């Protein structure tokens, strides 16, 4: 009897295993270039929607979706509607790897667009075999210069200028500004590719900080750590220059610590482009008086500048298709990436392939219309988007006004010691109705 029971159990296990094998084996075969049909192009986004990074960057996919909805309402791309599949990676490498793999294998996206985060996306790129599968990885929202390595990331195009470029231009700005140059300067930076890239940029520019950089783990800057760092620096005579090279939530933590310690006026604050978004700082509880006077780098027009033609066009689209979401730099960035994506898809032609899309950006990407005030740098040998910055000063309303009243943009590279140069770049006008018609 016992033997019979064991036999039964063995039979059940065998049946379950066989049924499992049959269920697993019924999956359809993969097409050559998934995610594109006569009616639709499926794109994918993996980034933080929840958690502390999600609070700041969670608006990004919504902004891209809104722009794609606008394009779809205007006939799509050569008659194909764009669908964006969004997955939350909570800014964690493990989730980024699995979510990106899911986008490629499960959602069968044609291309990825706007992925955010350096540590997260570098792991996701390898885990999802994006290079081997030739999945276009468009307009990655990180300035890590490593993503420009075409051999390692053959399908990636970044959008932000590299952090090394930003650091080089910051160093020039400090050196050329009479009120800043004589002061001791210090750096508080995120301890990952982001911060390390910045530190390397300052080294390339020959800038020497008065003390080694204060580095903190990604997502790990506590109020206590910020207060400790500021208390230590408050003993430095004069009005030291304090460069903040981290995400906006970290900038907010530092500024709130300065408020608590009454040290806001003690420093000349310089915030990087990633961490200097005024609207987000205000939303995170930083006082308007605190942000007043902060120096910040940007390559975009100010999101509050209603006179800017791109800001005006994107604001209209946001009002119509992204209801209830306020227009800020993150929304501007999302819509701009979406507009570049549409131009890329158009440039690749009606017979859309992954290889064709990559080649189209290489050959025509530098000429795309974009909101950026600095040139796009795409070519056969360059995968870097924007390659420069301008410096402005925030006011209490959160507006970024050109420093000294005149907007001057600088361009540079990520690897040489050559000094940044002033740029005479004039961007293309915004496409009519915000709908590109390039080919």
């Amino acid at each position: 009897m016992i033997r019979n029971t064991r036999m039964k159990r063995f039979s059940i296990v065998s049946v379950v295993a066989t049924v499992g094998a049959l269920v697993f084996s019924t999956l359809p075969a993969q097409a050559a270039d998934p995610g594109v049909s006569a009616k639709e192009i499926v794109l994918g986004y993996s980034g933080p929607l929840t958690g502390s990074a999600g609070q700041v960057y969670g608006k990004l996919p919504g902004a891209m979706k809104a722009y794609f909805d606008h394009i779809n309402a205007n006939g799509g791309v050569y008659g194909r509607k764009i669908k964006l599949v969004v997955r939350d990676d909570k800014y964690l490498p493990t989730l980024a790897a699995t979510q990106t793999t899911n986008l490629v294998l499960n959602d069968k996206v044609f291309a990825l667009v706007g992925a955010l985060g350096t540590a997260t996306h570098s792991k996701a790129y390898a885990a999802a075999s994006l290079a081997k599968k030739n999945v276009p990885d468009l307009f990655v929202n990180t300035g890590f210069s490593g993503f420009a390595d075409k051999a390692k990331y053959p399908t990636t195009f970044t959008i932000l200028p590299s952090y090394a470029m930003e650091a080089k231009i910051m160093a020039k700005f400090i050196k050329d500004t009479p009120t800043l140059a004589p002061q001791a300067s210090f750096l508080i930076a995120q301890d990952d590719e982001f911060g390390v890239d910045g530190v390397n940029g300052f080294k390339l520019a020959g800038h020497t900080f008065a003390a080694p950089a204060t580095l903190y783990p990604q997502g790990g800057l506590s109020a206590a750590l910020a207060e400790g760092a500021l208390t230590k620096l408050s003993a430095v005579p004069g009005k030291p220059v304090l460069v903040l090279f981290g995400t906006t939530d970290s900038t907010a933590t530092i500024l709130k610590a300065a408020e608590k310690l009454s040290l806001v006026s003690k420093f000349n604050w310089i915030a990087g482009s990633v961490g200097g978004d005024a609207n987000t700082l205000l939303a995170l509880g930083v006082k308007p008086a605190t942000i007043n006077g902060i120096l910040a780098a940007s390559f975009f027009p100010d999101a509050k500048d209603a006179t800017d033609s791109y800001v005006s066009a994107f604001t209209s689209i946001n009002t119509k298709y992204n209801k209830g979401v306020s227009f800020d730099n993150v929304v501007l960035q999302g819509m701009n990436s979406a507009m570049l994506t549409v131009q890329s898809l158009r440039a690749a032609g009606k017979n859309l392939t992954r290889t064709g899309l990559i080649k189209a950006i290489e050959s025509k990407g530098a000429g795309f219309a974009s909101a950026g005030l600095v040139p796009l740098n795409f070519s056969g040998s360059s995968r870097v988007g924007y390659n420069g910055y301008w410096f402005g000063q925030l006011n209490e309303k959160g507006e970024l006004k050109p420093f000294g009243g005149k907007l001057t943009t600088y361009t540079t590279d990520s690897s040489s010691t050559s000094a940044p140069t002033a740029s005479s770049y004039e961007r293309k006008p915004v496409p009519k109705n915000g709908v590109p018609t390039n080919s």
Partner: protein
Amino acid sequence: MLKGSATKKRLFGFIILGWILLLISDRIGELRQYQGAFVAMYTLAIASIILLTGYSGQLSLGHSALMAVGAYAGALSINNFKLHPVIALVIAVLIAGIFGLLLGYAAARLSGPYLAGTTLALAVSLPTIANQFPVLGGEQGLVFDIGTPPARFGEDFSQYQWFFWISCLSALIMIWFLVNLLSSRYGREFRALRDNPTAAQLAGLNIGRQKALAFSLSAGIAGLSGGLLVMLISGVSPSAFPLSLSFLLLAGAVVTGVYSLKGVIIGALVLVAIPEIAESVVSRIGGSEGFTTSLPGFMVSSLLILAVLFAPNGPGHLLHKKSTLNIKDNSREGNK
């Protein structure tokens, strides 16, 4: 004789299971291969918790830290010494095991909430400690690249199939070892330790040594699981081992039933399947972003409550109970 026969049957069973998995791997798509590799990895991680908590009665809330130790050891072996990935995974087991042994001896006098608190503190602090050593790559961590699959498997043999093979084989070997260990003298000693430490001590058991041994074995298995995890995501970094991972594994262990290894795969399947089920629910009924992101957590919580209410010892125990009843029924019928 009987023991030898049972061990052989067990070995035969695992070989059959391995053969079935080998066949399955050829017939499923890359996504299922990738998910299957995650199931194998979670199976190991949950098994390590069951060994520690269910069999030896020690509660750990910081298993993610033990996984991290193995993962870093494996990554350093590959990056610095150019060792074969299989050897790197063996090193991950050994280093995590040694770390667990030291921790086990240190924590031997602790039990209940005190031990839980100690392991929790370890999980919280280990990522920060990892950031302090440049050799560990700081916040961005280290690459964990096992390279492309051997060319002899052919061009159609994907990276994901390679992951599936390595993960399943690791899980099969380790679970086979664990099942044999737990049905040996050591297993009985662990259970004695769990059920009544004082009685076990009076019976001549060295409580401190047994606790440290259980901790070491559990850490070794967790280290292997950590090595497999970072293989699947191609890199190791502190943020790959958040505290939430420890709680997730504990939830998987409770769903599986912490007192038995039977059905350990169910907990792993739940952890991999829940996000996908949640997505398909959302895509069918729609819902806000908040609903989408909180649904997986809600589903896991519901499953935990159901498990505690209806199968506190896990579904494996239910099956065992049912089959025991059947045997009794059959015996009665036979006696008639």
